[in-house]
């Protein structure tokens, strides 16, 4: 066994043989690295979870043992006395009870993520309802008064309906009724997932709740925040007959949050004009004539458009711009020019084209999917009566039990010597109102 002196000699040898003076330039470079590292550390987001984990690792052994024992005991108690399913059921029951007794309810139904198509719903007891579509239509209803107000922001028009006509809108509040009449037990527990830092537990309802019905409902999956026991989001799967499966996502659910009652005001806002009414009490300002609105299948459409905002009187200039651009590309339009309108701050005009071309900004290549659409054709010049035509069109769509699900579209044909009388097709994607 070497003695202490021998050990010291060896240590001393290592020290001496590694005792080189560090050159100044090397030290400067290392200090530079340290400066960079310091900046990085100072911008670092603290990892609370990892820090907690490591602090647990570095606890004194006695405390580690105590914590581990306590943890095992808690798990054992949890496993024996409180089965997970049972706890999950209680979470669902709490969320359903809160929805059932809600005095106010707000949520957003997302019909399409890209482009974003969504409807914001609000409900306020007793009987106030409102929805606002991302494509510029807003409806407010007071079922006690039996009245509803429909606002078309794109054309700055409004329509006030009485009790009978209001039923179509009230029906659209069915999903709110579904949420407000959830049974205390779900058909199936789907498990857990983490979203936005929250632990969510999923539940499936395979049949519609008793109070109201969603036609073709296949499943209603409701995800509840395990911490607050409040509904977080809902995924609804619908399939009617041979139709393709359709999914709706309900998000931003807020229960019993304060809602401004003026949102349900049935007084038309300033700057809006009334839509011509039909029937015996008609006070039509414009003779729109009988407007046959057809609901049917619309083909998919690929088009080159230019995004616009501001006055719609820029439409001709926008179309000329797109036409000129297509000429420079040597492309012939595949159909009649059209405009699509969300609001005066967001609209576009362009021409259908064959798929597979590439365009540069500000022009955009858009692709509209095939689907159910309402359409009506107005013969003759399109101009001063267009707002009245649109009012009659939307009214007819709602009366037929459908709701618009996308922006309004105008397709212009004719108007020159070759094509004869001009005509305008009004078109809107729609879905059956539940």
């Amino acid at each position, binding site marked *: 066994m070497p003695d202490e002196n021998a050990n010291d000699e*060896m240590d001393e040898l290592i020290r001496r043989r590694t005792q080189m003076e560090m050159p100044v330039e090397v030290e400067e470079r290392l200090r530079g690295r340290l400066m960079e590292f310091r900046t990085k550390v100072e911008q670092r987001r603290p990892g609370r979870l990892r820090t907690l984990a490591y602090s647990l690792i570095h606890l004194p052994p006695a405390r580690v043992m105590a914590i581990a024992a306590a943890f095992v005991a808690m798990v054992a108690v949890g496993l024996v006395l409180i089965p997970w399913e049972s706890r999950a059921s209680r979470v669902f029951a709490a969320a359903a009870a809160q929805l059932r007794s809600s005095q106010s309810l707000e949520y957003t139904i997302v019909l399409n993520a890209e482009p974003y198509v969504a409807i914001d719903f609000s409900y306020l007891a007793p009987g106030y309802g409102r929805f606002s579509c991302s494509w510029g239509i807003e409806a407010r209803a007071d079922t006690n008064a039996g009245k509803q107000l429909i606002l078309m922001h794109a054309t700055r028009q409004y329509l006030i309906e009485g009790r009978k006509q209001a039923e179509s809108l009230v029906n659209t509040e069915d999903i709110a009724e579904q949420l407000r009449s959830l049974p205390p037990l779900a058909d199936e527990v789907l498990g857990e997932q983490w979203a936005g830092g929250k632990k969510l537990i999923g539940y499936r309802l395979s049949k519609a709740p008793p109070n109201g019905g969603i036609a073709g409902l296949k499943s209603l999956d409701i995800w509840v925040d395990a911490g607050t026991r409040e509904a977080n989001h809902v995924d609804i799967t619908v399939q009617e007959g041979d139709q393709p499966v359709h999914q709706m996502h309900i998000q931003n659910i807020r229960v019993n949050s304060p809602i401004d009652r003026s949102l349900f005001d049935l007084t038309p806002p300033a700057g809006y004009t009334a839509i011509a009414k039909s029937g015996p009490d008609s006070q039509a300002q414009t003779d729109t004539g009988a407007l046959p609105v057809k609901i049917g299948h619309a083909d998919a459409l690929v088009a080159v458009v230019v995004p616009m905002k501001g006055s719609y009187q820029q439409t001709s200039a926008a179309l000329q711009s797109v036409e000129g651009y297509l000429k420079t590309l040597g492309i012939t339009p595949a159909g009649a020019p059209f405009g699509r309108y969300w609001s005066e701050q967001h609209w576009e005009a362009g021409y259908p084209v064959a798929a597979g071309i590439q365009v540069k900004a500000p022009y955009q290549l858009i692709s509209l999917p095939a689907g159910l659409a309402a359409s009506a054709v107005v013969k003759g010049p399109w101009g001063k009566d267009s707002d009245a035509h649109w009012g009659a069109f939307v009214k007819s769509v709602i009366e037929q039990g459908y709701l618009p699900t996308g922006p309004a579209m105008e397709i212009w044909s004719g108007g020159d010597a070759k094509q004869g009388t001009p005509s305008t097709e009004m078109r809107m994607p729609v879905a059956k109102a539940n």
Partner: protein
Amino acid sequence: MNEQQRDYERLIAPIEDRMMRAVWRICGNPADTEDAFQEALLTVWKRWDRIRVHPNPHALVLHMCVNAAHDALRRKARQGKLIDESAIPEDIPDLSPSALGDISAAEQDAQVLRAIGLLPKNQARAILMHALEEMPYREIAAAMECREVTVRKHVARARTKLRKLLSHLIPEIRKEEGSHA
């Protein structure tokens, strides 16, 4: 001063010089030192949350520096490049005793580093922290996350192996000590 700035002041600022010196002394040349130092800082960054709550964070950070430097040393030892030519004077006009002494010193430094590079990792790191950084066994054990007795064993085994590998240099040390006295 935010939380991160306070952490840096507490964990790194007091040992900046020791970190640089430890890497330099083990690597012994500018290029390897810079690379190893960067490696060490990367490890510190990755384990920052662990360092923040470690009972002896300074020992742990120095351990990371020693590890990075020792890795560089091992790589070099494997490649057989341990004599740093830049440390040997290029121009030796008359083979005078002082010039030969410089060569001898550089060679001896290289031999010591090569021998440490040949040691198993834990033994090398333990002896480097003990001999070079003069850290007590208790702190080395905290940094290496093992028992103190294990560190002692690593150091003892490292010394035994180094004694065999470097026995010819021990008299040199004695001689130098005598001349300094």
